[in-house]
């Protein structure tokens, strides 16, 4: 009986989504204004802070390249392929987890994954890959294949008080519909290509946030139990969405509502 109600509720919500996309879609003039703000993205300051942190705790770009066993020249393209399966970590990891490993190796107390210091530092590390095309390889090895499958499954699994999955609001057929005055975006390469534009400055939070952190905010609002950052499911979700944005040039920090 409970499941029946859950499904009925989600159907009711979906059918009451308005198609008033035009009213709430941004006008070209407004879009240009928000795009211009990227020139002075407040997140540039956080990325500058991240650069200092990387230098202090990880040996800077050089230290990171050495840890990842690539040359500094190859570092940008290598970073553009994250999340990756790294044998030393025995799991698929995001850049933030790599930085934790490097901090630990250098004898420092690691930043928590959900801390602004970690957001800043991983944003700087990812910015080294700016203009590189996102090149994640979900077929690189069995661990990446498994992560992609887990990510897709997590994306499609309905759960929580309203029986919603990520796909309930972000599937291709729903894209453009208005929910809470905002048109729902296409998260893949035809739309926002989230994986290429996060970490980003969130205007409503006046702070720099990573993609997994954003997933948490979204889950909370959709009444789904929030999954911890860095957990296999969260990394898998990032793998899945990064694959959806594959080929898009990386442009961080982004600027989001």
């Amino acid at each position, binding site marked *: 009986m409970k499941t029946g109600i859950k499904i009925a509720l989600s159907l*009711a*919500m979906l059918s*009451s*989504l*308005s198609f*008033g996309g035009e*009213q*709430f879609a*941004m*006008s070209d*003039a*407004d879009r240009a*204004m*928000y795009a*211009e*703000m990227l020139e002075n993205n407040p997140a540039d300051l956080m990325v500058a802070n991240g650069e200092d942190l990387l230098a202090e705790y990880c040996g800077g770009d050089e230290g990171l390249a050495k840890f990842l066993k690539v040359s500094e020249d190859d570092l940008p393209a290598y970073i553009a392929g994250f999340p990756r399966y790294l044998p030393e970590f025995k799991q698929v990891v995001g850049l933030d987890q790599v930085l934790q490993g490097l901090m630990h190796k250098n004898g420092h107390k690691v930043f928590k994954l959900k801390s602004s210091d970690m957001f800043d530092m991983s944003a700087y590390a990812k910015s080294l890959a700016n203009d590189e095309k996102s090149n994640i390889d979900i077929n690189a090895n069995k661990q990446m294949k498994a992560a992609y499958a887990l990510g897709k499954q997590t994306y499609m699994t309905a759960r929580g008080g309203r029986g919603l999955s990520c796909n309930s*609001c972000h599937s291709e057929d729903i894209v453009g519909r*208005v*929910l*809470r*005055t*905002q048109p729902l975006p296409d998260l893949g390469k035809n739309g926002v290509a989230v994986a290429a534009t996060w970490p980003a400055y969130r*205007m*409503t939070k*006046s702070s720099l946030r990573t993609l997994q952190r*954003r997933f948490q*905010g*979204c889950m*909370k*609002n*959709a009444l789904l139990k929030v999954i911890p950052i860095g957990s296999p499911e969260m990394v898998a979700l990032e793998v899945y969405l990064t694959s959806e944005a594959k080929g898009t040039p990386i442009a961080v920090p982004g600027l989001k*509502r």
Partner: protein
Amino acid sequence: MKRRDFFKKLGVAAAVAATVTPTMSFAKSKPVSKNHITIAASIDAVTGGKKPKTSSKVKLKVPEIAENGAVVPVTVTVDSPMTDSDYVKAIHIFASKNSNARAIDVNLTPANGKAMFSTRIKLGGTQEVVALVALSNGEFLIASQSVKVTIGGCG
């Protein structure tokens, strides 16, 4: 947000019209909030009671619909030679319905070369953003634009 409110807002989303009218009438229309008097008084305080003129020389750029109220871009540009004898002395920016209507006073000099100022402001809700410009000849120019502030989205 409570579940009831969530479903209510879905209905509202479709019904709200996003029309915007640039308006200079705030000075003449009935006060809509306590602050309505504050902005007219603030402007008077700056001009010393002098009536500012609307002019196509002042370009006020704000979004018609602001995605959020915390970070609203504002740019004011004034067509002026910025010479020692003819320049923009100051650009004042106001937010008509914020508890504090004043945002910033920017005092320029000919050394700026161009009369322009841009920043980001907080808007507590839909309201007018006003740019008041003081010229070196003692004249005041004014421009105003309504900004619709949407408070929505998930998370």
